[in-house]
């Protein structure tokens, strides 16, 4: 599963995208974030405060209880500041 990062989430993790292997335990965005936090201190630090983390599945911002699977395009980023 490929995951894209933007803004300071990208800066803190240090890459703008990465592939992780899916496991049966990762059923929702919540599960994914919990898993990502175990990868490294950088991941844990970047994703520690989920109140300022947003997730898009297939280019649509979703709640963290959203079910995901391997074919989904996942992106994780801070609140958007367009305009």
């Amino acid at each position: 599963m490929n995951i894209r990062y933007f803004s300071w989430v990208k800066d803190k993790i240090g890459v703008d995208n990465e592939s992780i292997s899916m496991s049966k335990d990762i059923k929702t965005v919540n599960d994914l974030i919990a898993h990502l936090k175990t990868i490294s201190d950088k991941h844990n630090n970047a994703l520690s405060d989920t109140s300022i983390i947003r997730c898009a599945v297939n280019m649509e911002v979703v709640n963290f209880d959203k079910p995901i699977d391997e074919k989904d395009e996942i992106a994780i980023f801070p609140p958007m500041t367009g305009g």
Partner: protein
Amino acid sequence: MIKVQKNDFNIGHEISEITSKNQNIGGISTFIGIVRGGNNNSLNSMTLEHYSGMTEKMLNEIDNEAKERWDLIETKIIHRYGELFPGDQIVLVITASEHRKNAIESCQFLIDWLKTKAPFWKLEDSTKGKNWVEEKQSDLDAASKWKS
């Protein structure tokens, strides 16, 4: 119509494109967002990162929603990305309608939504260093008043 681009835009040209094709426009509202500089501002540049693909998708969705909610003849959203400098234009919203109320309200709706729903992130480079702009409560409040 939406455009996501690195290049600058010319409001006169963009309006002409709309008025030349539509004979029944009575009012045109526009909003231009600009990189603030000057005064005590120590900003060197502002870099807009965006999620290519999702940006176009979100802008199209917002644009279509405006056309559903108001009687509009034409709309245009142009949003730039990349490195911009104080005084540079960031975003242009144009709404055209027969009667002014629809153009005025929908223009405000679009810019309020762009602030919190368009996947852009602004990196400010100032004398204090580099800093990602944080979401503002006032922007969330402005967007929430349009919830249907």
